[in-house]
């Protein structure tokens, strides 16, 4: 059989089960409600960043588009432009190369670059670049609609040998082309007030990095898997993706114009760090709460166990006859009832015991005063009590006789009819002559039977020197009749 556990452990476990329930509910609430909210907040934050960066880049590029369009309009209105004036004009538009590194005019099917303006640092290359055949560049052939700007794909610039993008505006017979180098773009996004830890990438139509806030992935092709955009929003996509075998969480926003995208991303472990921190904190707090609840439960269970031990001790005290016990006041009705019940029980036992003592006293007085000898023995036939008549008959004072076997062979037995006839069958060992007459006849086997008469005529018989043999159903208490 399984051994019972202590009430302290039992109650602790029960309380623990009760305490786990709210902890679980809180954990589920955090997992299902708070974490998705935080995730959404992270996405919104990234989306805001992506929108801001896309806006900045768009403004930067659109500024260039407006500038080149204005220049194209101006050139269109000039019928006869002196080449030196044109070069000066184009050079001035490039300035220090903050936007355009080179602006040149070429005829699609002609003899290459007819005029070129360069940023200050590149002007020494003018001689090389004039007349350069650009027929190998795909954007030369793509720009067909007059005065409609066209953004090229990224390419390695002949002028600077750096990654660049070209803005092409077809004029009536020729093209005006502005080259924007992309390392400047990286510089631009690096200076934007983007949160630390965020990576900002600008991707061209082929997912090639054309600008990188960390300037380490420039020109690389990245596999960004756009997720479903949020309902009602266009131009945005958010989700997790692999970048250099690291999992990132990012948002992609479109840049109007060249058809690029801005990707604002951060390693997923960084993105979810606040969420993970919140979750771990909550888990720790909940675990601590649970531990405290269990400790409190164990403490309370201990108190209850102590109280129950106290009641057990009180019950043992009552069993030992200590009836005047003090019962502490209890706050709970059940324990108060238990205490009161114990108190009533002790009072009842005390009352009954008192009655028994009185009865005993009465019996002793009676026995002391009667003419019959009464000897009382224990289960083993040892004398426990003798009345004065028995002392007189046995010649042995009670104080000496107590504890001795009932000395039947030394008793001058002369009994008369001390058991009814109908009970004679109970006495198989008593000779029939003795049974019939009650005469003082000794057994032929020298085992003088000895009769003890109780109030109901119970009978014992024994042999000399032997312990009395109890007859089932008979009491061990009897009276020796007139010996």
């Amino acid at each position, binding site marked *: 059989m399984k051994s019972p556990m202590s009430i302290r452990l039992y109650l602790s476990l029960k309380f623990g089960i009760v305490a786990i329930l709210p902890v679980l509910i809180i954990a589920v609430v955090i997992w299902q409600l708070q974490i998705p909210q935080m995730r959404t907040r992270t996405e919104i934050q990234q989306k805001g960043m992506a929108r801001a960066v896309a806006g900045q880049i768009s403004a930067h590029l659109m500024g260039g588009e407006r500038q080149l369009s204005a220049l194209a309009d101006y050139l269109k209105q000039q019928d006869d432009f002196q080449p030196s004036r044109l070069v000066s004009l184009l050079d001035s538009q490039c300035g220090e190369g903050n936007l355009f590194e080179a602006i040149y005019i070429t005829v699609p099917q002609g003899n290459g670059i007819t005029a070129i303006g360069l940023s200050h640092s590149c002007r020494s290359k003018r001689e090389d670049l004039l007349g350069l055949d650009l027929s*190998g560049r795909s954007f030369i052939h793509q720009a067909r609609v007059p005065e409609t700007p066209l953004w090229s794909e990224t390419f390695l610039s002949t002028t600077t040998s750096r990654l660049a993008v070209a803005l092409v505006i077809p004029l009536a017979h020729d093209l005006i082309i502005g080259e924007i180098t992309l390392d400047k773009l990286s510089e631009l996004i690096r200076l934007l007030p983007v949160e630390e830890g965020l990576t900002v990438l600008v991707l061209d139509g082929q997912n090639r990095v054309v600008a990188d806030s960390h300037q380490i992935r420039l020109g690389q092709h990245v596999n960004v898997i756009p997720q479903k955009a949020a309902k009602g929003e266009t131009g945005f996509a958010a989700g997790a993706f692999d970048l*250099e075998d690291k999992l990132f969480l990012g948002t992609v926003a479109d840049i109007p114009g060249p058809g690029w995208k801005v990707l604002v991303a951060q390693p997923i472990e960084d993105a979810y760090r606040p969420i993970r921190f919140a979750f771990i904190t909550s888990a720790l707090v909940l675990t601590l709460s649970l531990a405290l609840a269990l400790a409190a439960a164990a403490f309370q269970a201990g108190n209850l166990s102590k109280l129950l031990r106290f009641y057990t001790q009180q019950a043992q005290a009552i069993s030992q006859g200590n009836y005047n016990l003090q019962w502490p006041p209890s706050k709970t009705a059940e324990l108060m009832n238990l205490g009161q019940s114990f108190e009533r029980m002790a009072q009842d036992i005390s009352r009954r015991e008192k009655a028994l003592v009185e009865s005993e006293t009465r019996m002793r007085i009676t026995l002391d005063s009667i003419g019959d000898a009464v000897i009382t023995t224990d289960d083993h036939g040892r004398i426990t009590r003798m009345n004065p008549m028995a002392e007189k008959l046995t010649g042995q004072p009670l104080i000496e006789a107590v504890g001795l076997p009932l000395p039947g062979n030394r008793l001058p037995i002369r009994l008369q009819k001390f058991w009814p006839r109908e009970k004679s069958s109970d006495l198989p060992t008593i000779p029939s002559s003795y049974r019939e007459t009650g005469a003082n006849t000794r057994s032929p086997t020298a085992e003088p039977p000895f009769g003890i008469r109780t109030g109901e005529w119970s009978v014992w018989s024994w042999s000399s020197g032997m312990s009395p043999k109890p007859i089932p159903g008979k009491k061990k208490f009897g009276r020796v009749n007139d010996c």
Partner: protein
Amino acid sequence: MINRCRRKPFPGVWIITGILVGLLFSACGDKDPLLIGFVGGTSGRVADLGISGRDAVQLAVDQCNRAGGIHGRQVQLVMKDDQQDPDIARQAVQDMIRKGVAAVIGPMTSDMGLAVLPLLDEAGLLAVSPTGTSQSLSGRDDHFFRVCSTTREFAVKSADYQIRSGNMRRISAIYDKSNLSFCKNWLENFTETFTALGGEVIHTLEFQAGEERSFLELGRDLLRMKPDGILIIANSMDSAMLCQQIHKLDPDIAITLADWGATERLLELGGKAVEGVTVVQTFNRDNPNPRFQDFRKEYLDRFHREPGFPGVYAHDAVQVVFTALKTRKKNQTLKDTVLSLKKFQGLQNDFSFDAFGDVERLNASINIVQNQKFIVVD
């Protein structure tokens, strides 16, 4: 008296123990990625070589990872741009050694190979170069391997063709001193064969882009001695620029290029000025091998341009490293593994390493640019 029996452990204890053991095993199962380095010039004037190589390596790594990686470990690429600067190349390789890369793909040019060679040997790190062809790197028991033939094969083939075709006999040559080991070695091999066959190199120029002399001036200088042909040993951008300037000055003169300049970028930058230009290479753009065709298709789909010879050789180089990593025995170095395997499958054809990690691919061809395409003529 109540017997105090030993309590049986609470079932939850077993469950928690099970979970912890499970977590422990799952944590052990998370293998760290296997790092592979790539070093090449991905910016500046040699960027086409570096970018094509890098993209091909990236594609190969992605393919490998999709197929489950190497012995269950994902491969992670550590990419470095050497900017065709020896100091930066050395720094890049040192970074890779620190990071614990298993092997390096690159460098893409011979000079950068020579610059990083001592570091590779010191660290016992294998580098497989896709396009480093200088003979200065040949016949050495080192950790620099390559999957392309040496300059000798290209230069001899080119010289032989020019003489046989009668295109040119008196030539002016120009080479880029930023990759001096490759260029001088190329020119020496060319000159040796060319002169032996009756040709003459009447004028030699060296240059470095960005220096004082413009390309137009260099063109004028090349034509000064009235040669019947020009040999350009330079990267594709400088080759295209020189072709453009020479074309401006003398549209009819024959021009031939070293294999270094024969990338798709030459066609893009050279325009009409590179029409009729001859180039030498061991790479066939029309190769029917399904491995090459599949690779080319995937490369085009992803990067929207031709892989060119740098892409093809970079893919071959990374396959050498992957094969060696997959078959390497315990306590065997990667270098020893490659040498013991010896023969490898390339995208266009199989190739074998000699004891020094050099490869001889006897299939150099002469191509001519026609309608902005490379056409094999010999």
